[in-house]
Each structure stands twice: as C-alpha cells, then as structure tokens.
C-alpha cells in the first residue's frame, strides 16, 4: 500500500517535470543575476532577499503540517516569511558580505522561542550582544534572547562580515524546537571586488578566485531527522522524553524522497517549498561556458545525528566548512575531494561537483565494449525507471513494454543519499528518506528544454 502511494507520488512528479520543461524555465539562465535566477528556478536555491545593504527579514515562528511520502503528515513548527504561510524549513536568507542584517522574530507559538546563529559573529539585540537567558534563580532558560510566547517578538542584528553558509535555528529548548522544524539557512555572498571577472552566469562562493561556480547549478541541502512521536506529543500538548528520540523519517530541505526531487514550490507540497534535485550538464572545456565551472551544494545538518552523505557519479570538492573557506593562514587553498561527506550535527559544508564525460561513450565512435544488455533478461525495478533505454548520454532507446520511464531526453540520473542506509528510507520502506537525485543533461544544444 505504501509502495502504491509512492508510485502515485512519483508519477505526479514526472508530470511536473514535463511541465517545467515545456515552459522552458530551466533554459536561458546564465545571463541573469543570482537573485533574478532564484525567482524563477524550479531546481536550485530559492533565495529570500531584502533591501540592498541593510536587508530586514521578518520571520514568524508558527505551526503547520507537512506531508510525508508514505501518506502520513507531521505537525511541525517552523519560520514563515513575514505574514506568509507556514513553510519548512524557514526561508533561505541570501545576503551580501558587508550587509547590516536585521532579523525580526515574531512568535505565535505557545512557548518562548528564539533564534541562534551559531557560526555568525557579533549578533546583537537592542544594541548589545545577544545573551544567554537566565531566570531569577540563575537557571539557564535559553541560549539567546527570546520572543515571548503567543505574540512576543525580538530583533537580532548582525554585520555579515564574511561569506559562507550558515544555519539559523531555535536557541530555546533546542532538542524539542529544532526537531520540530525551527531551522533555516543563511547564505552570505562574497564581496568580489578585486577578483577576476567571470563569464556571465558564473559567480564566487567565497572571496577567493578558486571558488567560482555555475550560478544556475547552486543547491542547498538541509538534513534533518523526524521522530513522529515528538510531533504527535507536541501537537497533543503531551510530554516527550528527548532521550527516547527515535527518528523514523530522514529529510533534505524538509522533504523525504521521492518528494525531494519535486520542483521548488510543487503544488502538492505546499508547506515544503524546497526541492533538492541537482541538475547540471557535463564539464565543458570552454572557459566562457558556465558548465566549465562546477555546481555548488550548501550542506547544512540541523539534525542531532551525523549523516554520512554519498553523492554517486563523482567526488565533490570541499571548499568551505561552517561558514569559512578552507584556506590556510597564508590564504592557500586547502580544499580537498571526497566521495563521502560526513555531515556532523550542526555543521555546514560547501562542496562543488562536476561530472565529466571522461570515457566519451558514443555508439558510432566509441561504443561500450560489452554486449549491450538484452533488456528482457534484466529487471527494471517495480516496472518504473529513470533510465533512457540507452547507455549513451543524450540518446533514448526502447524499454520493455509496460515499463514506465521518467527519462526525458537521454539524461543520466545519479542517486545522492545518506549511506547510513537505514536513513535512506521512509519508516520501514526503503528507497526514500535522505535521498535525492542528480540529473546530468546532455550538453547544449539538447532536446531537454
């Protein structure tokens, strides 16, 4: 029964993919600025931005529901953008290095809450450094200044003094409140003055010449765990023992696979706006092509557990950790390549990815030197596949009758997932959870869009 539900959900998703392609939203991006791109993209980071130089963000802590791929729902707390609807996670706040950032937290929850910014420096409230809170007996009640329950507010300010990827999350009763969903991401864009000019569609992740990336291939992956017992207890105002925490769902950007690969803003995930499907073209040798530059993934682990994350297809290059570029005191590049990213609780990792058509398989000029598989002798699992029917990038071929294909234009798909494979599941059902796809389109011009 669960399997049937998931299949239905995947089918809805493939229709959405077709719609995306038909409207051509993925094409023609390179000439746009990062923010303009963010406004239209169906995959990749969706930025929430504010006024140039001094952005103000109004975040409203409120409750709502999310849906899970097996048909369950979960009661959540998270941050809405101003008076907007509930969403999980909170908005991705994109600011620029040097900005004076103001974040106003309005609390509609029935208990005090706050926002902590663990890797940011010099956060102030009312002109003085944000402070741990104590009650009259001297007991710690919150890691930082709170918005009091049922209508209180608090205003945090900071100077975004360095580029990088940061987390914002509850600083009050975190074991409960962060697990309930009070988390989000902040991306600080570098001041690139003095750095070499880049082709259109290419930007810098850090204030470093070696941090260039393809702006249309920028992604965010916020990893978290979900124990439905906690969410039910909070909804029913019952006690919950955090030492008994037992996750049953594992998420990226507040969604579990296969929802992770649905578009940003997919209609059937109205409170879970952010997808995590990674899409790119193969490495292009031309310096003026955005695909000459790698894609960038901002990983943020807001969970309480470590998550060993394994992108198939290629190594990634780790260029930043916890809002700091990986550089020596002498500013030498200390980046390194990995096929397994072990995301520690609370860490952020910036990792670039590229897929290169090294072998250049081609049916005419370089055929794959083994017998092309006889598909009637092989299995397409559960009768559905992302495979094109052809091993060659950009080609499609027949699939057995009755097999449903999600492949559009001969593109490749790679799976990216937690290698604690019990987390690549929705409760007791595999092929879910902390799991997403990378889509590699054939080089332009192609028939993909």
């Amino acid at each position, binding site marked *: 029964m669960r399997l049937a539900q998931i299949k239905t959900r995947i089918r809805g998703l493939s229709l959405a993919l077709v719609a995306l392609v038909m409207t051509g939203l993925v094409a023609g991006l390179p000439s746009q600025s990062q923010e303009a791109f963010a406004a239209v993209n169906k995959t990749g980071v969706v930025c929430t931005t504010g006024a140039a130089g001094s952005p103000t963000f109004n975040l409203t802590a409120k409750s709502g529901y999310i849906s899970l791929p097996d048909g369950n729902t979960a009661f959540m707390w998270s941050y809405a953008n101003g008076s907007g609807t509930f969403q999980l996670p909170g908005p991705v706040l994109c600011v620029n290095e040097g900005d004076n950032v103001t974040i106003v937290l309005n609390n509609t929850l029935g208990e005090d809450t706050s926002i902590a910014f663990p890797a940011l420096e010099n956060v102030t409230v009312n002109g003085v450094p944000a402070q741990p809170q104590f009650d009259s007996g001297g007991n710690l009640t919150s890691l930082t200044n709170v918005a009091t329950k049922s209508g209180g507010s608090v205003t945090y300010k900071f100077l975004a003094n360095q580029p990088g990827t940061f987390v914002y999350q509850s600083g009050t009763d975190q074991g409960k409140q962060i697990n309930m969903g009070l988390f989000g991401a902040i991306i600080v864009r570098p001041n690139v003055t003095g750095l070499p000019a880049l082709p259109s569609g290419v930007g810098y992740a850090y204030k470093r010449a*070696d941090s260039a990336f393809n702006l249309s291939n920028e992604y965010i992956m916020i990893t978290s765990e979900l124990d439905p017992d906690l969410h039910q207890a909070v909804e029913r105002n019952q006690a919950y023992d955090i030492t008994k925490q*037992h*996750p*049953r769902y594992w998420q990226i950007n507040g969604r579990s696979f296969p929802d992770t690969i649905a578009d940003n803003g997919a209609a059937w995930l109205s409170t879970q706006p952010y997808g995590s499907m990674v899409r790119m073209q193969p490495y292009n040798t031309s310096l003026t092509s955005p695909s000459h530059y790698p894609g960038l993934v901002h990983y943020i682990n807001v969970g309480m557990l*470590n998550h*060993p994350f*394994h992108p*198939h*297809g*290629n*190594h990634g290059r780790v260029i930043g950790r916890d809002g700091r570029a990986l550089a020596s005191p002498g500013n*030498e*590049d*200390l*980046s*390194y*390549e*990995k*096929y*397994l990213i*072990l995301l520690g609780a609370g860490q952020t990792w910036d990792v670039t990815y590229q*897929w*290169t058509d*090294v*072998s250049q*398989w081609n049916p005419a000029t370089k055929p*794959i*030197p*083994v*017998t092309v*598989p006889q*598909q009637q*002798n*092989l*299995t*397409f*699992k*559960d*009768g559905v*596949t*992302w*495979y094109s029917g052809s*091993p060659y*990038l950009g080609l499609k071929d027949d699939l057995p009758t009755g097999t449903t294909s999600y492949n559009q234009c001969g593109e*490749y*798909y*790679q*799976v990216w997932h937690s*290698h*604690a*494979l*019990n*987390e*690549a*599941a929705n*409760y*007791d059902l*595999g*092929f879910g959870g902390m799991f997403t*796809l990378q889509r590699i389109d054939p080089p332009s011009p192609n028939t993909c869009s």
Partner: protein
Amino acid sequence: MNENLPPRKVSRRRFLAVGGGAMALAAGMTIIGPETILAYSNPSDVRNAGLPPNTQTINLTATDGWIYLPGSLAPDASGRIVFPDPLGPKDANNNLLQNVYIFGFREVPAGVDPLSLKGQAQASAPLLITDEGRSVTINLTNAGLQVRPDLVDSHTVHWHGFRNAIPLFDGVPEMSIAVPIGRDFTYYYEPQDPGTYMYHCHFEDVEHVHMGMTGVIFVRPKQNTTGNSSGAPIARYAGGAASAPLGYAYNDGVALNNPLSTAYDREWSIFLSEVWAKAHYDDAHIQVSDWSDFHSDFWLMNGRCYPDTLEVGSDPNVTPANPKLQYQPISSLIKAKEGEKVLLRIVSLGYTQSAMTVPGIDLRVVGKDAVYMKSKVDNTSTSYLTNTVYIGAGEATDVIFTAPAFSGISGGTSGNGYDTYLLYNRDYSNSTSGSAAGYGGQMTEIRIYPANTSATILPAQSQPNT
C-alpha cells in the same frame, strides 16, 4: 518484473568466458597453492591468464549463505532467540552452529557454473584488485537464494566512489538495470584514479547491503609499474626487484626515503560491517524488518568477529582447517618486521561510524576516499599522523605505519616470537560479539617481529591480507 521470467542456464557469453579460464588452466599455467589463494581477484591471478595484458575479468555470483559468529545474544524483548538462527547449518553431531543468514557475493572459479554456488555466499565479498588504466569487466550472475525460493530479488554491483560513472554501470536499479535470478550482466570500467573504493549491491539497498553484499575494491597506481622520477623503483607487485617495496598507495612522486612516500612492504584491507541479528533472522524466516529500528549486535572486520579475525585466510572453494570459517575467508591478522611499512585500507559499509585505533603506533593518513592527501596548489602532501581513524558509513581511509622497533624481549612480548599490538574500534561496544562478555567484534592483532626474522617464519608478502 522478474517473477515472470523462466529459469535459465548460464548464457553463451558467460559459458565462453568460463571456458576460456578453464583452457588457461589446462595449458599448465602456474597455480597458486590453495593455502595462499584468497577470496580475491587480481591482475596476475591465474583466472585472468590468457587475457590481453591491460584487461581484467572478474566473475561474481550473488546468492545467500551462512556465516559463523562467536559470542552470544540475549533473547529479544519478546523472548525470541534470533542468534544462532535455528534454520542454520549443523555440525556432524547435529549441533546447531553459531550462524547467521547472509546475502553475499562469491568469485566464480574457472570452469564452475556460477549458478552452482547458490547458497554459498561469502562475507565480506571477494577483495577485488585492479590497476590504474586497466579495462575491467565484472560479470555478475544472480544465482538466487537457497533459503528463500519465494524471494525473487534482483542484484547489482555498485562501484562506490567510481568517478564520472555512467548509470548503466553504476548499479542503482532505479537508474538503470538490475539482474534477476538466473541471469547475468557485464559491468565495464576504466579506472583512472588509484585508491581504495568499495562495492556493494544497490538493489533494496538498506537490506542487501546490511545482509552482506559488501566488499572492497582497490586500484593500484601507475607508479607501481613505472617507479617515479625521484628514484622510487618499480614495485614488486609489478615485477620489481626483491628489494623494492611491494607497492605504492598512490602516485606520490617522491623518493623512497621521503617521509611522505606511500611505499609499503605489506598491505591489509580492513573492511568494517555490522550485523543486526534480528534482520538476518527475519530474512531467513520470511519476515520483514522495520529498518528504522536498526541497531547492530555484531561488528565485523573482514566478515569475522575477533578472535576469528586472527585466523589465516583461506579459499572458500576448499574446506579449510577451521571449517566454520569457510565462507569468511579473509584474515585480518597483521604481521610485519620491525621497520617495515604497512598499508591499511580501512573501509566501512556499516550504518554507523567507527573509530579505529592502534595504541602505541602512529598511523599516517595518506589517502581518503581514493584521493591522495595533497595540496591542490602545489601537490605537497597533506598527510598527517594520528592513532585513531574516525570513519563514516561509506568512507575509506588509507593509513601507513612503520612497524615499531622490536622489544628485544626473548620471544617478544607475546612469548611467541613477536610483540603484540591491537587494532580495534574505540567505540568499545563494537569490540564485543553480541551480548557476550569479553572481547570480540572489530578487533585484530598487529604482530611485530625482529628485523632479522627468517622468511620461513615471516615470508615477504605477495598478496594483501596474508
């Protein structure tokens, strides 16, 4: 859907491949004695004799089987005994062996029908070895499950960490294909990047990986066959002189006496996996597991628990001196002479993190995830010393240590001619076997011999994990 497929014998293509190996045997090639044949494939293996020099063929079959674990396990909350499994094999006196049910791989010997290995999977999977620049084919046959004729799962091979993979050969069933029972498929690779990788089935991955369809594959560097411009010689693995190192972990480019050299005299693959006994029991007893309840009871090193990790390696095709370990053929016993360089390729395909530690010996981390530890800017080594390697699920770390000075005590600290050090999981709960008292799990010994030890007592190594 595979349940509609008729049973089928081995394909003509596979038959020819197997026949080719048999002919090579008949032609009088050197056969390695059974006591040294390991459960692995490497380019010099007789089973690849007759192939062009830069190609390599590996024949694997996927099936189920039983493995032995020491220790014991308390009944679960409902009083059920899931270890040892009452369906498991019994000894000659009809006593139930301490076995758990597994899924796994086997390498198919020349002339053997891969389907005939049904029910004889090994743990961990055959150690696969290849060389940078070689053309590698892996033929996978699905032999079906002896204990579960009702379960018609397909299988795949996923080469974990292979760069720029294409979906057809990446082994994820939803992204390309999977191999149903009685059928076979050929995977093809051109490995370009030396280092330590792993491979596993990706079909129903949470189940098949945990059930034991997991092993190590590594790519030896070109420097083995060429030496380097700093004077490092051709390695013994590639026919170098007896005085040359056995191999290099990476194309390090430095002289042998450079502290950053990745030359080694001996090497071991240390493969870490876990057994949640209930899930294995459930698979044998036609039950399903709720994987969100996952927790391990046994922690394995190369498919065995300490002290079995110390037993010699064997050939799964031959009943060994210790028959209970026939299908756990890979030894973890590390032996070296004072001053020798030892490479450990530490790999995890469990679902939890491990902290592998060696008290008393510094480990130099020279590679992670098949990447040589070096600066992107100027190629200088960024290797570092530690005595504990923290390793995630799906991660690999290469460390080299120099065998410490022999104590000089008569008979060594052990009284048996060597000094004893330990390699174990610093998470001590993983150094036990189930709920039994005493040591078990992910632990082995490092035995250090005097520099002048004879070749009779400790021969030069010619294959890993020996």
